[in-house]
């Protein structure tokens, strides 16, 4: 077991090293290139893990045990949800969010990080190459790795209890939850702003042209943050469910990571433009003088957290609407049930499945 993880780690480090040497790390591109290198190194690490396990055992048991029939039957449904909603939002609603990860995060929550990652990956590939028009996406496949990371993170968050309902908590808990979340949101936003300044700053943009627009953009970002905080507080205290705080944090982290990885892909392949509503934001950043990489990253850091927080909320609502019995049968289902796993009475003669 250790061997596999060690080998994967070595693979990750090697590829990251190569990426660092070969990649373009001029000041403008630095942030973007880091993210891309990290994503590729992750993928290679996974491949190495699988390869070593195959060499050792002739199979992929530790991976495929997370893929029971139930998970396999869930994945097509999740993939379809991703594609249909994603296509609808991209083609019909020109809003700066994507909504193409609901299925990915759902599978991550119910079945685990690896199934979640694979759902995202396969969904994006199929979306571009196999699904016929009108749902076919023209730019989805290159972002498959982003979708995989999203599924992975969702699975990990769920594994560690982020999506377990915590209703009827006392005011004190809710209050500290709100405070901590606001702190996290504020902290991450500030870090993002710093990083963004680092990246844009040295690249130098013509501050002369339309400073107003940049100020507007700044206010827009601030408004997003404020809306998130307000929404969180409302949900927290109206529903009295502490998990609202966890959902916001999970969505925020996932969104930031997704933005970091998708920005260089979008910038290098499509010049930051994908035909969706997000293009308006990119245009706005460009008008303010940012180059393609910075503009795409800026757009991502606004759209992705909002999109992912929304998606996590939707998934949380869906999970709550599912019967306990249905959830419990999934590999990670017990982590999504209030109070943890249900204790089944043991009797001498009552036995579970022996296979």
């Amino acid at each position, binding site marked *: 077991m250790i061997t596999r993880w060690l080998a994967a780690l070595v693979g990750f480090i090697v590829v990251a090293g190569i990426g660092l040497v070969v990649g373009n790390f001029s000041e403008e591109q630095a942030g973007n290139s880091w993210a891309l290198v990290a994503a590729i190194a992750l993928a290679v690490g996974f491949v190495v893990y699988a390869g070593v396990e195959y060499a050792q055992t002739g199979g992929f048991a530790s991976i495929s045990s997370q893929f029971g029939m139930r998970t396999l039957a869930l994945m097509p449904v999740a993939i379809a949800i991703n594609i249909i909603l994603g296509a609808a939002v991209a083609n019909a609603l020109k809003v700066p969010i994507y909504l193409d990860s609901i299925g990915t995060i759902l599978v991550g929550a119910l079945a685990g990080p690896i199934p979640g990652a694979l759902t995202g990956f396969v969904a994006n590939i199929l979306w571009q190459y196999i699904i016929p028009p009108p749902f076919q996406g023209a730019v989805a496949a290159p972002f498959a790795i982003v979708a995989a990371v999203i599924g992975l993170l969702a699975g990990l968050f769920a594994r560690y209890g982020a999506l377990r309902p915590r209703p009827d908590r006392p005011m004190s808990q809710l209050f500290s939850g709100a405070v901590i979340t606001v702190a996290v949101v504020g902290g991450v936003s500030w870090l993002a702003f710093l990083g963004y300044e680092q990246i844009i700053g040295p690249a130098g943009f013509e501050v002369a042209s339309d400073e107003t627009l940049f100020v507007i953009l700044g206010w827009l970002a601030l408004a997003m943050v404020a809306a998130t905080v307000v929404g969180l507080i409302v949900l927290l205290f109206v529903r009295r469910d502490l998990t609202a705080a966890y959902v916001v944090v999970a969505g925020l982290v996932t969104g930031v990571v997704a933005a970091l990885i998708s920005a260089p892909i979008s910038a290098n392949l499509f*010049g930051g433009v994908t035909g969706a509503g997000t293009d308006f934001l990119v245009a706005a950043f*460009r008008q303010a003088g940012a180059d393609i990489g910075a503009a795409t990253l800026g757009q991502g850091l606004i759209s992705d957290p909002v999109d992912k927080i929304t998606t996590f909320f939707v998934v949380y609502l869906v999970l709550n609407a599912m019967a306990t019995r249905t959830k419990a049968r999934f590999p990670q289902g017990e982590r999504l049930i209030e109070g943890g796993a249900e204790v089944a009475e043991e009797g001498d003669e009552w036995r579970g499945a022996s296979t």
Partner: protein
Amino acid sequence: MAGSVDLIEGRSLPAAIGRPGPSAVHRLNPLTKATLATTTSVAAVVLGGLVGPLLLVAVAVVLPAIAAGVVGRLAKTALLLALPIALSAFLVNVFFFPGAETVLFRIGPITATAEGLGFAFEIMARIMAISGAVTLFYLTTRPADLVLDLERRGVSPRVAFVANASVQTVPAMVERAAQITAAQRARGLDTEGSPWRRVRGIVPIVGPVILGSIAEVEERTMALEARAFTRPGRRTLLWSPADSRAESLVRWGLLIGLVALIGLRIGGVLA
């Protein structure tokens, strides 16, 4: 083993299964066509510029499309697919290209530049190549055939299942959404009117669609287990698409060509 449908002693498969396509391009092995689509897409990005992608479109998309007799449909579908992006790319790059100097004209505070126009054309050419390649593949290949070919080559039946089932679930889910929309309308759901009302109208449709589909997963799981799907090992295939040594060589050639192209790009030989 690969081969088209044979007549065997006793019974044969119904004619509709494994029926070969109308043109030579259709009859190519699905993996060959998939390789062509993928290498064309990636090459368009790697090449960059204007000439490269356009050349790819001419050679790798239009020519096979003519041979397959699908040029008309290809043009229409690929253009529809590429239109939103092309439009956005055009507008964003022509008007919002910082650092450009050659001004073409102004509209209020917004400036159109020649460099922006040039870059816009490059992006559009790239998108044409990608959407053209992908559409050509879609028009000449049945998805199930590709999955079958992959399964014959050793891909796990579970992966094949997820791919095939996903393709079938998308239209099924859309139909379900249409049915639920009709039912909700009959109950007085308002789906016209202001955008806000429309968005609100989506929730009573999306909710039941998602929850209904998830609820069905349990039944589908049982039905699949009852048909021994989880049995370990290979399963028998009824047929598989034909393949030939020549096509295998072509596939490898395309891949090697792509790797070479990437190498040239990294090495700085290409602009």
